[in-house]
């Protein structure tokens, strides 16, 4: 039974590694400027994790195989170097490895969060509420009008609570159900939640950020490939959470300008 157990561990360990090595289920192709850093970090971590995983499982299996059902005369042996060697190995090897991952990984994180958006980033407001995302563009005046939560009304489609009668800046704001952006242009998303916690996740963009009621948060990114990508809510927000999504449409500058004009006409 011990040898069978050892074999089972080996088979499971190798079988677990196969889908990773063969890239069977993978994140989609990256469409952002900061994505390559994250993807490189992921690969690096996967290699190190993979080596540790396989080494630990295979050595466990080997020792189970070798040291069970021992013959009567065989002596008990101590692992060479004893506990001291193993502690040293853990501290040095694992310690260096994890700190290296931490230190180098900071660069990828910093590229998203520690650099401020550039001055000519396109600001777009995102509101998350049970169970839809809505987006607001500032219009030709470049300014967002103030929000009046008490004026939010789903049936009249006043999703943001804008007072276009009294607030000059709100008059030209464009509210949409789709997030369209021009390719290769930095986008500055200004995020707030209407009711409960939500989250904004676009796999291709390598961006995930929670909406926190009471906080105005933001992320910025530069999309690099034209296409249509799903925006998923990843923070449990109620019964419609599974179905709360929108689409990110990355368009050429001309297509984006045309789209914005069409959306403005629909307001």
């Amino acid at each position, binding site marked *: 039974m011990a040898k069978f157990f050892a074999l089972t561990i080996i088979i499971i360990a190798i079988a677990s590694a196969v889908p990773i090595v063969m890239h069977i289920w993978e994140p989609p192709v990256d469409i952002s400027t900061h994505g390559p850093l994250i993807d490189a970090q992921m690969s690096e971590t996967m290699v190190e994790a993979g080596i540790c995983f396989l080494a630990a499982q295979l050595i466990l299996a080997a020792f189970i195989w070798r040291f069970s059902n021992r013959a009567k005369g065989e002596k008990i042996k101590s692992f060479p170097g004893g506990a001291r060697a193993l502690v040293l190995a853990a501290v040095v090897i694992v310690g260096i490895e994890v700190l290296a991952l931490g230190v180098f990984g900071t660069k990828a*994180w910093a590229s*998203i969060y520690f650099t401020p958006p550039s001055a000519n980033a396109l600001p777009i407001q995102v509101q998350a509420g049970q169970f839809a995302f809505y987006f607001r563009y500032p219009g030709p005046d470049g300014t967002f009008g103030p929000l009046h939560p008490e004026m939010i009304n789903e049936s009249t489609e006043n999703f943001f609570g804008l007072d276009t009668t009294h607030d000059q800046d709100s008059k030209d704001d464009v509210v949409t159900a789709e997030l369209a952006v021009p390719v290769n242009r930095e986008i500055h998303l200004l995020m707030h939640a209407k009711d409960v916690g939500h989250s904004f996740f676009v796999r291709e963009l*390598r961006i995930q950020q929670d909406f926190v009621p009471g906080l105005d948060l933001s992320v910025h990114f530069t999309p690099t490939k034209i296409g249509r990508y799903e925006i998923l809510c990843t923070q449990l927000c109620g019964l419609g959470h*599974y179905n709360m999504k929108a689409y990110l449409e990355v368009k050429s500058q001309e297509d984006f300008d045309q789209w914005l004009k069409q959306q403005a006409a629909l307001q």
Partner: protein
Amino acid sequence: MHDMSAPVVHHHAPPTGFIRKYVFSLDHKVIGEQYYALALVAVYIGLVLSWIMRIHLAWPGFAIPGVQYLSKTGAPGGVLTPEYYLQLMTMHGTVMVFFVLTTAPFAGFGNYFLPIQVGAEDMPFPHLNMMSFWVTCVAFLVALSAFFVPQGPPLSGWTAYAPLSALGQIAGPGQGTGQVLWAVSIAIFCVGQLLGSLNFISTTLDMRCKGMSLMRMPLTVWAWFITSCIGLTAFAVLMPACILLIMDHVAGTSFFVPSGLVVNDQLQTHSGGSTLLWQHLFWFFGHPEVYIAIVPAVGVVSHVLVTNLRRPLLSARVLVYSMVAIAFLSYMVYGHHMFVSGMNPFSSIAFSFPTLVITIPATIIVLIWIGSLYGSRLRINTASLFALGFISMFVSGGISGFFLAQPSLDVMLHATYFVVGHFHLVMAVAALFGIFAGTYFWFSKVTGRMMNETLGKIHFWITFVGAYCIFMPFHYLGMAGNVRRYQAFVDDFMGPLMPVHKFITIAALITGAAQIVFLYNLIHSRFWGKLASQNPWEGTSLEWSIPSPPPFDNFGGKIPVVYHDPYQYGVDADGKDYVMQDSPEQVVSARDEK
């Protein structure tokens, strides 16, 4: 360091009457069995909930027979509504984390064996101990009662993030009464755990018999002691958090709700609260909580393993220091649950470093185990299989932590099935393996009969292979972007992943069925199992020096004196390869802790 002074022992008379013996018992052993029984009921409830969830995910729209009787509105005709899936999911997590993983390995085994293993007749506060169980029992009943109120249990997950959990019924079905009952249940549970922790700590520090220095305590005692220290501080934070949440529901406060929220077109009147405050309070408890779940299992596995290696661990002292290091670090890492939560991104980096560093003591523990396996005389039985299986599972689950510890990777993996795979492997599977190892190992001491080895091995094989079949694929799903806490997968990219979900569900049903083999073995062996000798595993610690089952006062009035540490295996002692802790016999050994 010797502790040569024996505590003052107040001998008490044996209990009489059914109620005092079996219901409101002051005996730590009965209390331990009661906790174990509660965990047993809870784990099967949690298991059935997981089956319902898995069937619904793999075959949405399938009418699951029987669920309509649990809730006519939640599952009309047996088909789950979106909200009911989330409600079952919330209760699955709550029941499993609190009433199984915090209860069985810690309160169950710990209550039974800690006093015996330190040579005490009982814990110093038997009445508080009895209260701790019954308070936990009340908490369990309050939690279950959420199923039977009109809108059912809450749907906010076991993590109950505000403001979803604080706004009341308007935020969703079950968020009114159900959420309040949940918070009340957890607050009561915290009280039970605090009482239990007090007893564990004082027993360990004050009730050790003569010769039982701290370094001569079995690793299980160290694990329970460390866990109760963590528990004291962690539950002490969760309880007020739950009380504040209850107040937001019933007292008109706004601890967790800011102003300006609009739900169903209605402007909420709350103001002044902080959404993130709940997350900080919850995770300050929540991360130490997962170590409360795993550290006792680490202790049990160490204890069971060394008995079956027939040689001392390379260094039990290093294991103790590693468990202490993990406990200490566990308070500094909680923010890794909040990397993308909107807290200051610098904080994310700050939390990620101790999270990475905690890998080191965890690795040391695994390496000490594997290193001790080298050159040993490994014995294979169901208990040792589960202990070895734990090592494999703990490695697998721990390594996915490498990824989640890094904020930059969490951007892709947060709230995906990768996280679900990670915590199920370390908590659900590894901690459960610790419970199983302890059960098969100590069953004979508690009942005087052996569990059936054949059934035990069948249970082990199906569970080991099955658990990997269920939870390893979760990691692949997560890497592909499968988001968690979805009752159905409607995203464009989910089509090719559905066969994986079906595979997982089938594996889950089979693995779950194997747990019925365990239950049968437990019950059948209790009454008709082969009679056990006093020390069938040839163990050295004090529980093996007393009859099976033990007398009410553990040592029959004769408190032991300890001369050795508990891992004197592989010695030559009168034809035996071990010497018991209370044996005055001096033997040549590799090292004998003082």
